[in-house]
């Protein structure tokens, strides 16, 4: 249970941030409204981070740089397509279902495309997803002519983005459900086990007869699917979709994955820590806002945080500190 240290650190951070935020803001930070608005902002970036995590777990330099581009493309393309077919004001339910289905299908196709070029053509994931990032963004620009597409806020779509169920934002519930589902898949299905083992030792995986091509395609397809769902949530929250939405999401998604203790070389990662890590980042971001610092400070903080957590992971600082703490308490414990 070595790496679980990340879980405890993240939990502690959440408590500390809540406490600090509550004190600094005089309570408004902990108000129901602020908690709800923070929870609404987590899902889109959290879904993309899970996608990055899965690609990293596959090992062999796996990474998915095309996530936000794919999300924007699915929002833009599905938006244009659905707007041309249905009238949102007359049949909001049908419109929402068609739009959501379109997003999911386009995201999934984008993900499968990533998986195919990586596994069948043997293109390095960095290069392949860099290329598709540009391709997806480019197609979104061409389709929308560089303008934003107004999806509008028909009722069911508005509920996905801004609605509350028992006081909890709908999008956050969707995010948690998807997280739980993926967590179960990773832990209890052969696919999950094979994914981690492939990432830990690709050569051994090949000799064990794992269908590596299928594993990689599945992984990137799931990542694309998540991007498509993120596309729905982005559209639902913002009314408009545009090709250049969330330009800093790429860094933030990777930052969340690294903070969650996902090994960039592959073979290890847990959904629960990714979710917690996304929450920590959102708490921190809102806190910086509350203190009144500019977005530039936030970007600087993200960069520093990423580098710090890389250092923490490299030198295994968490476990060392924990070990020194326990050895202080009881000198007989051996590591």
């Amino acid at each position: 249970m070595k790496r679980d240290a990340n879980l405890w650190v993240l939990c502690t951070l959440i408590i500390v941030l809540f406490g600090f935020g509550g004190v600094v803001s005089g309570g408004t930070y902990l108000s129901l409204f602020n908690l709800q608005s923070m929870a609404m902002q987590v899902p889109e970036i959290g879904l993309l981070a899970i996608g990055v995590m899965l690609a990293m777990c596959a090992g062999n330099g796996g990474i998915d740089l095309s996530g936000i581009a794919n999300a924007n493309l699915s929002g833009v393309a599905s938006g244009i397509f659905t707007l041309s077919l249905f009238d949102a004001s007359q049949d909001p339910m049908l419109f929402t279902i068609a739009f959501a289905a379109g997003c999911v299908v386009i995201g999934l196709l984008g993900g499968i495309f990533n998986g195919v070029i990586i596994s069948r053509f043997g293109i390095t994931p960095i290069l392949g997803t860099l290329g598709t990032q540009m391709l997806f963004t480019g197609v979104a620009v061409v389709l929308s002519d560089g303008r934003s597409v107004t999806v509008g806020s028909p009722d069911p779509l508005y509920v996905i983005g801004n609605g509350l169920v028992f006081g909890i934002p709908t999008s956050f519930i969707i995010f948690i459900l998807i997280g739980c589902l993926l967590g179960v898949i990773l832990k209890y299905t052969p696919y999950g086990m094979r994914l981690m083992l492939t990432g830990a030792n690709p050569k051994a995986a090949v000799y064990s007869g794992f269908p590596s091509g299928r594993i990689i395609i599945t992984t990137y397809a799931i990542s694309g699917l998540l991007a498509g769902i993120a596309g729905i949530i982005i559209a639902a929250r913002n009314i408009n979709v545009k090709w250049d939405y969330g330009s800093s999401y790429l860094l933030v998604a990777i930052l969340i994955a690294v903070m969650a203790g996902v090994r960039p070389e592959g073979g290890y990662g847990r959904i629960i820590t990714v979710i917690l890590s996304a929450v920590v980042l959102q708490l921190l971001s809102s806190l910086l806002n509350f203190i009144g610092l500019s977005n530039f400070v936030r970007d600087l903080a993200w960069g520093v945080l990423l580098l710090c957590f890389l250092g923490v992971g490299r030198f295994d600082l968490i476990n060392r500190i924990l070990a020194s703490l326990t050895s202080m308490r009881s000198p007989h414990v051996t590591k």
Partner: protein
Amino acid sequence: MVVYKMTDKTMDNQSDFSPHLKRKRRFLLFQGRPETVSLLLLIVIFAGVSFINPSFLQISSLVDIARASVVTGLFALGVFTVLAAGGIDISFPAIAALAMYGVSTFVLDVFPEMPIALIVFSSVLIGLILGSVNGVLVHGLRVPALIVTIGTQYFYRGILLVFVGTVWLMEMPSQMTDFGKWSLLDIESNNGVTVSLPVYFLVLPIAAFTTWFIFNRTLMGRAIFAVGGNAGVAERLGYDLRKVRVFAFGYAGGLAGLAGIIQASANRMANPFDFAGTEIGVIAAVVLGGARITGGTGSVIGTILGVLLVTVVNNVLVLVGIPSTWQRVVVGAFILLAAAFFVLRDRKSAR
């Protein structure tokens, strides 16, 4: 098996001109020199565009392309060096912006009389230091260079925007604008407009030659290829990985600082948000030039050809009637096609 008559003549014919061998040799041409593909593609595009729109083949548009390729070219030489060493650098736009904006601010506020040589030198020095930090971090943290440089990219840009400034500098120091305007040769085009090839264009060939010299005539160049090819083996052979990585990233940073100050001088303004998003185009150029993203290969000539290819594509789309919105699609498709082509080539040669 085919049995040949054993006369001298047929032997010669069969051994030299059998179609199989010939095909193999033609393929070998691509294998040793992947940049020939970029060259062919470049020629095809040039021919195609001049056919569709003859006004393209003017000296003025060639000068435009030469001018536009300087900054991308400097970036690309740096990225090529890092790629060859087995890393990747996407923080160079932030380095260029920080060096350029920092030095410009310093000159405007503190030292207005600073000679241009010193301005360029300090920008290069800032780039060099920031790049070396990248190298130290990549070596020390033992994580993919991509993730480290994503972090430093935000770090450097954050330092610039939080501590240095966020406003556009429209009034640049006169020595910098003079440097940007300083003309190497003036060419009068058919319609009477003079276009000038600026002196700063010379920086690109000089930097290209320096890079070529490092890679082909110094021990460091061999070490970079060795480390990029297989870091484990190179380490056992006694190469100092830390030194090689710090050098490669530092060199890339220095070139980025140089590119930044040239851009500021040429455009006569300093924009702290400049260069954001240029990294993909530059990496595309280097990859199109035949450098493998996993390291250990590539050439300076190929890199320059890749830069020309990307610059031409960015500049001619409008000339042939393709809307500029297609630019990303075309470059993205080029990246994927080039990557697929090089992978197929490697597989064939491995067989």
